[in-house]
């Protein structure tokens, strides 16, 4: 164990730095920033630095998986402001799922433009009646000649209005048992019969949507896996989502923000950051955040050599949301009178203020599976306790 990563990684970091020195910022900027970023991303992928797990024929760079190298790339690219991997739902969830379970033509058609950012995806999983109990979904699809015909409703669909395509879970085998009746389809969001209704949230954002399907058609072969295999295909994807929520970097960033805020906020005529009660609370939260950070780093190290992180890995999501709530309490303390106000106009997830996070933290206990589902997973898979009857 070492505070450095060792020679192999030091050499890799050198390589990354050298590449950046050559390629970013671009020698001849085109004037179109988006085009420059895209060109740079293509170049970085060719050099084996981005989308390492994806083969070259699908637009990736075909390298052996190595989370530490991924981390080095993220760090050094971020430090130079160079565009890194896109991290939308298409890149994080759909593309790996297709890679694992898609037909050859699907991989060729969809993965490369998704990684390049030319195709934007949204996810059609949750329904009003099925939250944690995803498998109880009722949106149905019937094969009619050369197309599936979809009818029903999805909810909590992020970015539905911006998306080109959706990957959607539908019930295609109504007579099969709950989990066995589901298929995983792809769908053009411009198809007739789709209605999108934004869902305004507590903090004023309208990030989520309801999506209604009135006899919407999608080609018969836009199915991933076989009929009735949708549940197992979705589980492939869900495991990616679980790993991606609440990364410790986001928590560390929030902690930095809350400390910045506590330096300007005042308590008893002095900066809040000097208040012993606040400092003690801050230290408690830092204890949790540090533990989470090092636990995830440890899991990465294990992953690199093919070891199973076990119990600690199963706890990530619950710990992440819990740290998020703890930080929200610090924000609320630091907010002072701003705690009476809505988040500032134009505040978004990437540029959050205290009020934004105080409210948003309440949604993280829900996103990506409620905390109670996480507790069951930890208890059953992590501690070997008996499964809930009926779940």
């Amino acid at each position: 164990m070492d505070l450095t990563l060792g020679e192999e990684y030091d050499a890799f970091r050198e390589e990354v730095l050298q590449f950046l020195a050559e390629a970013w910022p671009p020698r001849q900027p085109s004037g179109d920033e988006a085009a420059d970023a895209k060109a740079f991303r293509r170049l970085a992928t060719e050099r084996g630095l981005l989308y390492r797990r994806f083969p070259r024929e699908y637009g990736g760079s075909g390298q052996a998986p190595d989370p530490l190298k991924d981390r080095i790339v993220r760090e050094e690219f971020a430090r130079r402001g160079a565009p890194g991997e896109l991290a939308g739902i298409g890149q994080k969830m759909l593309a790996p799922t297709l890679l694992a379970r898609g037909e050859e033509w699907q991989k060729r058609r969809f993965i490369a433009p998704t990684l390049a950012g030319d195709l934007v995806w949204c996810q059609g999983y949750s329904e009003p009646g099925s939250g944690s109990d995803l498998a109880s979904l009722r949106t149905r699809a019937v094969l009619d000649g050369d197309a599936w015909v979809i009818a029903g409703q999805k909810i909590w669909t992020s970015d539905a209005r911006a998306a080109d395509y959706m990957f959607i879970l539908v019930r295609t085998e109504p007579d099969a048992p709950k989990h066995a009746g589901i298929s995983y389809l792809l769908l053009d969001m411009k198809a007739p019969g789709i209605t999108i209704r934004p869902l305004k949230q507590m903090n004023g954002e309208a990030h989520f949507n309801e999506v209604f399907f009135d006899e919407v058609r999608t080609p018969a072969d836009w199915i991933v896996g076989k009929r009735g295999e949708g549940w197992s295909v979705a589980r492939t994807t869900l495991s990616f989502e679980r790993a991606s929520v609440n990364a410790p970097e986001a928590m560390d960033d929030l902690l930095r923000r809350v400390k910045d805020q506590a330096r300007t906020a005042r308590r008893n005529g002095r900066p809040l950051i000097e208040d012993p009660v606040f400092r003690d609370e801050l230290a408690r939260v830092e204890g949790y955040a540090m533990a989470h950070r090092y636990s995830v780093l440890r899991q990465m190290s294990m992953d690199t050599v093919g070891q199973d992180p076990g119990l600690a890995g199963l706890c990530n999501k619950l710990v992440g949301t819990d740290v998020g709530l703890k930080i929200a309490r610090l924000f609320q303390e630091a907010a002072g009178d701003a705690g009476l106000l809505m988040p500032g106009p134009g505040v978004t997830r990437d540029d959050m203020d205290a009020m934004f996070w105080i409210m948003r933290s309440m949604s993280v206990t829900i996103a990506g599976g409620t905390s109670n589902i996480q507790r069951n997973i930890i208890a059953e898979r992590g501690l070997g306790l008996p499964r809930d009857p009926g779940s």
Partner: protein
Amino acid sequence: MNFHLSDEQAALQDAVRRFAAEQAEAGVRRRAFESEDGLDRPFWDGLVALGVGGVGIAEEFGGLGLDWIDVALVAEALGYEAAPGPFLGHVVAALAIQRFGTEPQKQAWLPRLATGEKIGTVALAEAGERWRPKEWSLGLDGHGRLSGAKANVPYAAVADVLVVGLSDGGLALVASEAGGLACEPLDVADRTRRLWNVTFRDARAERLPAGDCALLRDALCVLLAADAFGGAMRVLHMTAEYAKTREQFGQAIARFQGVKHQLANLAAEIAPCQGLYWYAAVAFEQAPDERAQAAAMAKAHLGDRFMEAGRTAVELHGGIGYTWEYDLQIWVKRAMFDFAFGGPPSLHRARAMSLTAPRAEPDRPPQDKARAEEVLA
């Protein structure tokens, strides 16, 4: 102490709750929440007709002549229903005029506050978390004029009279029709209780003789605690009811012991807290020595409990609980108000401790302890 409500007390609280529930059913809460100024006149008039405008105003001035505990009981009922409007500032302003006003001041304002013809409010805090009188800068000049700014004034733009906290710990009365004040609306989270920043420019003001800011702060704390108790109980009830109807994995989620125990823990956090604000409200009038400490503890404890209840409730509701359309968010934002308005819980805990555990001295001398127990008995 006798923790028993008289029939009249129970009846008033009941009437307010029934009226507010009925009106909320008819859409007033949501309408006010989405409205420009957060004031629904017919609803406020209806509350005033029940006596809410003058609960604490003496009968000779047209009020109900009741005690602060009665005002607090109304606050709990309004909190349970997340009722919109200027209640908080109005009743505290009336208290200030009744306690500290001259006879002409009382005559001028109390009857019209009691009938709801006029709306009152209080302007205490100044910008930058300054909730304590010793942090204020506003004072009267030699000609009875006021200049400067107050922050977070409830319903300032619709108020007819403002009770303003002064840097010397005193209070002044400003009639808005006399001019000299400008109100800037704030984009508040709790849209059932709106706030404005107010700038005074040579505004005509009258001093309230013997006005005492500290007493108003304690009165406010009691009402915030009462509101928080009402709101937290409602959040508990909403969530329990939701759990009974929401199905997952083929059964109501209320059947999952995990959910049951979360709700039971929530109940255990909230249900015992009623006496905390009751005691503070009664001590407010009957035990001056304990007034500030009891009010601070009630505000701190209930401010925290309501906020945490909101967090738990959103988690148990799932996605729906986080939407603008579902009413839970209205209570969550009332919790944010009760938490932050008047200063955060930590501030009041520090105050309460400095009132009971002075540096390096024993808590209280023994004879005081005995007396305190008598009072409690």
